[in-house]
């Protein structure tokens, strides 16, 4: 139960005062007991039990209220009270033992059971040492006042030490719990993000699949003959539905790569084998355009590196496909070499080239080149952006170079 702050303060003050008043009254009461009762051992247990109960009562009330920052004043006030209590008693040695409960319970006020027991053990060790020193007569003797001051000093040290250690442990525990809570909150956020991407994909693809499906059937005559003027319209509907489906797929791919849940599935790979695989897939397309299409294998075996095969294959596929599309005649060549601590892969073509001012912008999404009017009918304009995202996920770099005779697209991946 949490009370409003100002009520908490008053309530807390009242509870604390009541608790200490109970302790003082108990000890005053004990001091008036006849010595025949006082000399019995059971008095120690009684005094200790009553004090422990009073402090327990205080602890329960304290737990129900908002904590205030009166730590230093509270500690000093507690010690003063302890000093007053000791001086109220006539015989230090008889009642003193009961007051040793105070530091232990003081620590318990701030901690849960295990930590409180640990603190209690430390306090008990201090107490045991004091008792041993006293029994061996190693503590300085002298007047009652001097002895009382010495006892107060010991209790001051024990209580302060236990209390501050308890607070330190508690604040560390709270910090750890807050950290865990933050991590859990981030995980929930990431999960929601992933679900949103998945559902968006589903909702966009549902009508698209019907538009694409039926328009393809109309186009190839599955649903009967179409008039010439209808055929052109149907072809456009079909082509645009294919473009839209590709755009949706690539946008969702980008969302997926940029999401918190995206993880590369890396494994040790010989990149030369991956290049060879993609090269073979494009040989037919290059032949159809009569291009001189080659993979120039490195003279020395390249070291294996950790990479996500599926993602790097996509990068290679995008770059090689672009090179073939944008080269009407001449050659497309693929190179791979080790340069310092990186593997560098280059795809060189004798195609249209890239204007110098576009070399950086070309990796931006939907960038269309110098003239906005030169819109390519095919493609989404996202392929190079996706390549950049994937290479950078591998801590690599991607860049483009241009020359009068075409262009070179290259990327590097770190070896270590």
């Amino acid at each position, binding site marked *: 139960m949490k009370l409003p702050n100002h009520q908490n303060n008053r309530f807390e003050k009242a509870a604390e005062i009541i608790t200490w008043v109970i302790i003082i009254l108990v000890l005053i009461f004990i001091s008036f007991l006849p010595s025949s009762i006082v000399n019995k051992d059971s008095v120690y247990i009684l005094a200790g039990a009553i004090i422990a109960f009073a402090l327990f009562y205080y602890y329960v009330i304290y737990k129900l209220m908002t904590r205030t920052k009166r730590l230093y004043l509270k500690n000093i006030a507690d010690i003063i009270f302890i000093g007053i209590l000791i001086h109220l008693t006539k015989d230090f040695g008889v009642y003193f033992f009961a007051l040793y409960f105070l530091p232990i319970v003081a620590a318990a006020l701030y901690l849960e059971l295990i930590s409180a027991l640990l603190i209690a053990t430390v306090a008990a060790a201090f107490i045991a040492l004091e008792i041993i020193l006293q029994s061996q007569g190693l503590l300085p003797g002298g007047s009652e006042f001097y002895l009382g001051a010495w006892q107060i000093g010991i209790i001051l040290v024990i209580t302060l030490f236990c209390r501050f250690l308890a607070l330190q442990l508690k604040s560390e525990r709270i910090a750890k719990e807050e950290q865990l809570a933050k991590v859990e909150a981030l995980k929930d956020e990431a999960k929601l993000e992933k679900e949103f991407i*998945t559902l968006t*994909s589903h909702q966009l*693809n*549902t009508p698209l699949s019907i538009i694409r499906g*039926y328009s393809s059937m109309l186009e190839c005559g*599955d649903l009967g003959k179409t008039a010439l003027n209808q055929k052109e319209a149907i072809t456009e509907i079909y082509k645009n539905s294919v473009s839209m489906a590709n755009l949706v797929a690539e946008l969702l791919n980008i969302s997926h790569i940029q999401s918190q849940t995206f993880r590369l599935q890396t494994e040790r790979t010989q990149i030369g084998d991956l290049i060879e695989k993609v090269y073979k897939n494009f040989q037919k397309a290059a032949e159809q355009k009569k291009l001189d299409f080659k993979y120039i294998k490195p003279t020395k075996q390249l070291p294996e590196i950790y990479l996500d095969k599926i993602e790097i294959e996509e990068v290679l596929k995008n770059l090689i496909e672009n090179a073939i599309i944008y080269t009407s005649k001449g050659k497309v060549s693929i190179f791979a070499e080790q340069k310092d601590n990186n593997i560098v892969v280059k795809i060189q073509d004798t195609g249209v080239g890239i204007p110098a001012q576009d070399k950086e912008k070309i990796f931006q999404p939907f960038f269309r080149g110098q003239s906005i009017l030169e819109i390519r009918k095919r493609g989404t304009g996202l392929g190079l952006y996706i390549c950049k995202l994937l290479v950078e996920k591998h801590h690599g770099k991607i860049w483009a170079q241009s020359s009068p005779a075409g262009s070179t697209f290259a990327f590097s991946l770190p070896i270590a």
Partner: protein
Amino acid sequence: MKVLIIDDEETILKMYGTKLSMAKIEVLTSEDGQKGIEMAAKEKPDVILLDIIMPNINGLDVLKMLKIRDETKNIPVYLLTNLPQEASGEKAKELGAAGYMVKAEFEPQKLLEKIQSLPNNDQ
């Protein structure tokens, strides 16, 4: 060849059903997952095409049940859905799906070619 399509979207059933029927494939359809399971057990199709997002019972649960029943556990089940591969592909594979196809990428002609390339196609 007999193909069972389980999908809650009537338009999808009609679209793919028309294309496959034109290629002389016997097409059975069900708009409900539970009824689809019963149909599969009774008719024993050569292939099942299964959507995932459906009311009452979703496709992955249908797949699980198909793989438990003796009458249907050996029928290859291909998921035909608009959920992206990365969302449910792994789970589908674990449950025993033979393949995963995204509808927006599988026009009726492409689906027909896929069905015709399957090993038990006796056309």
